[in-house]
């Protein structure tokens, strides 16, 4: 189940939590002596006594070493070290050193300014303060040799409700031999090994703004900006989950969901050049349980080249087959499927990656064909440059050729720029600017009414 857009957003009302959060950020960043040492950063870095950049291009995106660490179920590449590292021995009892297993992510937007189109009735430029974007507590590590786990509890995009369970899975690693099969069971992020992993956005995601009153298709979006990239997005207008809650066009879903219940197997049985991944998911966008008797399944393959000269590249493709994993307004079940390709090149200071996806809806009720577009596509291309040890600059392009209810659908195209300055490798100050390339096409759609949005952001992990 992906966190739907409704889960992600709320109408902005600065509250105690936001103001308190901003205060914490300002306090921590103002007194460097209070921040952790470079070695004392999130669980894996603490556990293995290394800097963030051992595994990350720059946090949060992974470099080739970090990808291998992730694939191996949070164990050093080529090892089964979970039985040794991060444990405390008390006599004949082996316990986990808990501080090596718990981490926090915090993300706040001190200042956001949105410039709206002048000809849209009621659309006003807005300046917002201290919007808490992300609070996440997670625990991850290895239980014993070749058995890993991860669980996170997250409050995302200023959601007013309480924290909710995000990913939660156990992984059984190196089944049948080193790197041949790693099995994850639980609530997983399927795209973790894809060329463009949804949950590690170098462009920090910015939630849309929800308006009221609720319309026939749920709450209206007053404006949007790119969330996790158009390639990962739902792309369809007028579809609902099994509880008839709307699935918003910019919510990351299907293979690119941030979290979905299921079973996933991946490995590299033929060497480091080839990765396979197959899995079966609920796919029903359900927060808890699984009422969807028709499961979704997927297969992904990835080809890697990574040997020397600070260069690595990969090319991947997936097919995701949905089965009765959504509904339309009449309440009838439909099936959403997705096919996509992705690529990534890293060379010294450059990190270039992108993905293109095609979504199809099948099993539409009779009579809907004339009012419903059953195909949508999305493309995301991003490039980042490590200008200095502390400064990362990036640009991104997102285009969504939306599908769904013809009366509602509006495609969207955004160009983004971002600068990220790392006070330390686990503390980043960021500014992001999104430009709507299609605002001149007019209309009141949230895909068109925003002209430009500047978001500042402070994020840290510890």
């Amino acid at each position, binding site marked *: 189940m992906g966190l739907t857009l409704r889960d992600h957003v709320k109408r902005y009302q600065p509250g105690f939590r936001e103001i308190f959060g901003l205060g914490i950020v300002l306090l921590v960043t103002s007194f460097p002596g209070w921040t952790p040492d470079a070695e004392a950063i999130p669980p894996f870095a603490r556990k293995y*006594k*290394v800097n963030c950049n*051992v595994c990350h291009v720059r946090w949060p995106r992974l470099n080739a070493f970090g990808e291998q660490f992730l694939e191996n179920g949070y164990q050093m590449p080529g090892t089964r070290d979970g039985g040794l590292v991060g444990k405390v021995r008390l006599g004949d009892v082996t316990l986990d050193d808990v501080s090596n297993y718990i981490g926090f992510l915090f993300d706040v937007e001190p200042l956001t300014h949105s410039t709206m189109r002048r000809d849209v009735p009621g659309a006003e430029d807005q300046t917002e303060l201290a919007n808490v974007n992300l609070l996440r507590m997670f625990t991850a590590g290895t239980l014993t040799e070749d058995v890993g786990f991860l669980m996170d509890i997250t409050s995302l995009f200023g959601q007013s409700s309480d924290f909710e369970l995000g990913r939660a899975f156990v992984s059984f690693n190196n089944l049948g*031999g080193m790197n041949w099969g790693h099995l994850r069971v639980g609530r997983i992020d399927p795209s973790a090994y894809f060329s463009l992993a949804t949950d590690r956005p170098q462009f920090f995601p910015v939630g849309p703004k929800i308006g009221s009153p609720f319309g026939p298709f749920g709450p209206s979006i007053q404006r949007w900006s790119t969330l996790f990239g158009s390639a990962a997005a739902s792309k369809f207008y007028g579809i609902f989950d099994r509880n008839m809650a709307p699935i918003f066009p910019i919510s990351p879903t299907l293979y690119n969901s941030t979290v979905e219940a299921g079973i996933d197997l991946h490995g590299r049985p033929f060497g480091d050049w080839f990765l396979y991944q197959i899995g079966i998911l609920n796919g029903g966008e359900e927060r808890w349980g699984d009422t969807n*008797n028709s499961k979704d399944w997927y297969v992904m393959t990835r080809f890697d080249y990574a040997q020397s000269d600070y260069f690595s590249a990969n090319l991947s493709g997936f097919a995701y087959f949905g089965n009765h994993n959504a509904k339309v307004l009449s309440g009838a079940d439909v099936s959403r499927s997705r096919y996509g390709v992705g690529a990534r090149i890293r060379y010294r200071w450059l990190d270039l990656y992108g993905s293109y996806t095609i979504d199809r809806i099948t099993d539409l009720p009779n009579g809907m064909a004339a009012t419903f577009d059953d195909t949508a596509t999305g493309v995301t291309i991003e490039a980042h440059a490590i200008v200095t040890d502390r400064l990362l600059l990036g640009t991104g392009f997102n285009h969504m050729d939306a599908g769904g209810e013809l009366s509602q659908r509006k495609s969207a195209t955004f160009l983004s720029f971002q600068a990220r300055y790392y006070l330390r490798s686990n503390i980043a100050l960021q500014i992001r600017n999104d430009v709507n390339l299609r605002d001149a096409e007019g209309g009141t759609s949230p895909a068109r009414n925003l002209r430009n949005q500047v978001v500042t952001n402070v994020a840290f992990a510890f």
Partner: protein
Amino acid sequence: MKRPFRILITSLGFLWALGSSLSVYATTLSEIDVSGGALIYERSCLVCHGIDGHGDGPAAFYNSAYSASRPRDFTVGNYKYRSTPSGELPTDQDIFRVITNGIPGAMPSFGGLPESARWKVVAYLKAFSQDATGKKPETVTLPEPAIPTSSASVAQGRSVYLALDCHSCHGVDGRGRVGLTRAKELIDSRNLPMPPSDLTLAGSFKIGPSARDIVRTLFTGLDGTPMPSYANQLHGQEVDAWHLANYILSLSPSN
């Protein structure tokens, strides 16, 4: 549900069978290949040290582009963390220790590899350098007995610190803060910036945080970096190395 589920189960079964058959093959290969280090290196080390051992692996840039520590270039044979005199190659135990313990901040421990696998990697790393084969490196002899820390020893160490000009790189307060001009002079064997260690941080002592580790570093130096060996300067006054180590450790209270 039934059809995709069947496909998934069939796929799992196929991959499992394939994996099992390849496992037998790999075991046989490992027994034939006595060193076996290449396979382990490719899985565990290549991504940072590169396929030819130049320290230019696909992930090496991100941890080392602008600051130390950088993955070693095994082909030139100048290892930083040794117990041998400056300019000499490390002992097998030196390499094994780094693989096992890692380097704080820079390289994780690969103690998760079986001991036999780590020794195979040692053999494989030595093969990268022609000079590294056929030599039997000797470890430096440290002055004995060790001098325990005391206020007098720390004060003596402070005098040695200044006399040996340590402060020109590490600063008078040991924090490693030097001017821009001096910073530009501090480069490693690849002509990349190599800022001096902040001696007030326990994590700065990559080879180990004990007085013995520091004394050893004073005598061996860190080859490939601006940190030289002080064996000649300390000749005849070797015991001063212990005072200096005690002083350096006093700068980092967490030690």
